[in-house]
């Protein structure tokens, strides 16, 4: 899954692109190959994006989550037989581990079809997998492994019988030789190499023993095999060669079958890759309760009850919950609201949903109407850390701004978080207005979060605001930051509403400072300054 130039590195990070990619990643090597080629839909591809989103959402409804999980587990265990199939198609003789993989592959395909039977997904299995499985069937023997069994070929069975007999004959001769030597040395047995103490040796060493090394105290000896043994060994070797030839013959025949089915097997591999990628998206839609977005042709982004999933997941782990947001954005608009009111997260939610729609993936919202963009840009807070030591925050913003405004993307979604906050408010305001005017003129979709006043009217754009604190929680004596944050979250109304006038929303900054443990005298001084 490649973002291509839909988002730059920093925007991708802020919008959770990597988080998304991990969750949409398929399980099998086939899926991985397909997934690597996934690119965003572009303006003009609305129908295709819409169709994919609808199909995934429909499958998420249709296929039970446990089936999806079981299918994904099957994909996880799917061996990669691409190399074996390719080699067989080039007349190479495959080895037994290849046949094991091919068996497991074909069995997994059968299992996947069983798991997904009754759904609108088409069967993956085809004549090729059936033919390969039938050919390899004698090697399965009801077990999960593979053996080049006698049942593959009568000659193989016969050759193995001879090997068995000649091996038994060889072992018997060796056993007799060793037993004879052991008896003469008055031992229960001797191994391939053994020690004879000189002090215990009465007379000469028995026949059939050669000395490997002599020391004053002992002799290191080995069995010296006789002619009978050597004849038995020759017969065993001949039988072994016959088995090897018969096994090679069977492997060649099986490899030829696999080679003949290469086209069909490759078609299955391709279908598996697509299915794996689709199931990963279906699992995502089920896990995060997503719906298919209506992919619109106008430059708009509208949604209800939307969630920014990377933060939602983080909050869930921390025992808190994300407050879903509604927004109807078309063209450029301003977003104001108190500190910690969720302005940045609202921007991220916009970008995140636009990303999902661009990949034809259902979105975490009650409903959504989303355009396809060919660029999603981020400006302001969060984007500056990659600026490098030579640029100030403001200079970095201006460089990014220049890049975005000179971008020839026809369909731009720009998310700006407190742009120009680091210069003086008077000029900063002018810059934000100029930015909005420019975006409005080029017909971009944009949401510009700011604390600056009177921007929307001056720029001739819509004004949204986070509702803010319902009431200001009591400041705590103890510096329990997590408790303060919890209370703050409970008191905050994160909903976004469109406001008619251009009144700036209360920032409640001093109250927040107090709540988060600022010194009482300091807070008092701030209120005094505010009233002057």
């Amino acid at each position, binding site marked *: 899954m490649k973002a291509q130039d839909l988002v730059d590195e920093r925007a991708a990070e802020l919008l959770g692109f990597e988080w998304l990619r991990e969750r949409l990643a398929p399980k099998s090597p086939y899926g991985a190959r397909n997934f690597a080629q996934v690119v965003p839909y572009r303006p003009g591809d609305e129908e295709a994006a819409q169709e994919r989103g609808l199909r995934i959402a429909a499958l998420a409804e249709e296929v039970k989550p446990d089936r999806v999980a079981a299918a994904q587990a099957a994909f996880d265990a799917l*061996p990669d037989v691409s190399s074996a199939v390719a080699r067989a198609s080039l007349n190479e003789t495959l*080895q*037994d*581990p290849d046949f*094991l*993989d091919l068996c497991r592959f074909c069995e997994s395909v059968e299992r996947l079809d069983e798991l997904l039977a009754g759904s609108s997904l088409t069967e993956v299995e085809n004549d090729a997998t059936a033919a390969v499985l039938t050919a390899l069937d004698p090697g399965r023997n009801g*077990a*999960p*492994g*593979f*053996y*080049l069994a006698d049942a593959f070929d009568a000659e193989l069975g016969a050759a*193995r019988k001879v*090997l*068995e007999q000649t*091996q038994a004959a060889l*072992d018997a001769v060796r056993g007799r030789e060793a037993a004879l030597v052991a008896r003469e040395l008055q*031992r*229960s*047995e*001797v*191994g391939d*190499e*053994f*020690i004879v*103490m000189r002090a215990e040796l009465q007379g000469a060493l028995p026949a059939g023993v050669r000395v490997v*090394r002599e*020391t004053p*105290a*002992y002799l*290191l000896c080995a069995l010296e095999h006789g002619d009978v043994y050597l004849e038995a060994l020759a017969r065993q070797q001949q039988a*072994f060669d016959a*088995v*090897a030839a018969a*096994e*090679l013959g069977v*492997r060649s025949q099986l490899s030829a079958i696999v080679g003949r089915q290469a086209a069909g097997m490759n078609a299955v591999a391709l279908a598996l890759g697509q299915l794996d990628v689709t199931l990963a998206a279906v699992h995502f839609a089920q896990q995060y309760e997503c719906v298919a977005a209506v992919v619109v042709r106008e430059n708009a982004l509208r949604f209800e009850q939307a969630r920014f999933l990377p933060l939602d997941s983080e909050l869930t782990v921390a025992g808190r919950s994300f407050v879903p947001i509604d927004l109807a954005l078309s063209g450029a608009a301003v977003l104001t609201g108190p500190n910690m009111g969720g302005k940045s997260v609202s921007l991220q939610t916009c970008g995140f949903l636009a990303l999902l729609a661009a990949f034809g993936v259902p979105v975490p919202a009650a409903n959504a109407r989303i355009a396809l963009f060919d660029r999603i840009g981020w400006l302001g807070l969060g984007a500056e850390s990659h600026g490098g030591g030579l640029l100030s925050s403001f200079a970095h913003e201006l460089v990014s701004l220049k890049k975005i405004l000179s971008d020839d993307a026809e369909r731009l979604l720009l998310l700006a978080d407190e742009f120009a906050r680091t210069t003086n408010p008077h000029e900063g305001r002018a810059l934000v207005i100029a930015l909005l005017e420019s975006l409005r003129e080029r017909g971009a979709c944009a949401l510009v979060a700011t604390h600056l006043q009177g921007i929307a009217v001056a720029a001739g754009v819509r004004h949204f605001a986070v509702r803010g604190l319902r009431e200001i929680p009591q400041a705590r004596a103890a510096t329990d930051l997590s408790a303060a944050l919890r209370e703050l979250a409970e008191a905050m109304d994160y909903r976004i509403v469109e406001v008619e006038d251009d009144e700036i929303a209360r920032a409640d900054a001093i109250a927040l400072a107090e709540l988060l443990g600022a010194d009482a005298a300091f807070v008092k001084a701030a209120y005094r300054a505010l009233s002057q």
Partner: protein
Amino acid sequence: MDVGLRILELARTAGARSIFVVGTGKGVGKSTTLNAIYEAAWRTGLRTGIASVGHKPRWRLLPRTLFATARALLPASPACQIVASHGLESSAGAILYARTVFTGEYDLIGPSTASGLRESIAAIESQCDVLLVDGAIDRIATLAASDGAIVVACGAASATTPAQAVGDAAALIARLQIAAATPNAATVELAGALTATTAAELIAAGERREIVVRDATQIVMSATSLAQALARLRIRARRPLRVVAATVCAVAAERSFDPAPFLREVRDATGVPSFDVFAGAAA
């Protein structure tokens, strides 16, 4: 005497399903010991498995033996029953488990990682009556800690004198047999290795608490230092090991020891049943 059978009996009497054979050095008869136990297990009719921590090339295996190898090292003939392939990796590629059908020479190899090795050994052990592992000192401790038995091979190849060989064997076995930490005892838990320097510091500080290491492989010092440390500190292990036997190999390319006295001295110094696989003798 069937030395392999005697060692097998000792291990099984101790309740071990896995037997790890380790050596004090190269050429000390580790493979001969392993083979003697393996053939005894096979003759007894036990379902036998065999595994190697490292790469053990061209090992003669008898029919119906379960073993782990890399798929690239599996010989084409005679064909084996491939039992499973779990995706573990060795230095020679993906690991698979196979059961021999015919006697032949096979390469053994284990996974590259400690966790993979544990998984691989557990997989073979679950399908066998007895599993033999060609071990390496630094890897066997975590593997053998549960219910495995250890056999230590020593010999003339790794020492210049019998006394040195005996000392090395005694030190290794003393190290491997460090007792388990006493429950609820006051302890000094060492996160890393217990070295001679650490031991000297603890002795100088008059430490009376139990000095607890993770396992015997975390004790890194010479035989002389270890003897002193064991005499003056209460060294314990979180994962104690069981050494059931020692084997000796009195012959080496460079030198030979007198087998019978060497065997007796190893037994006396280690306190564990000792065997000479080459001479078919016990002490």
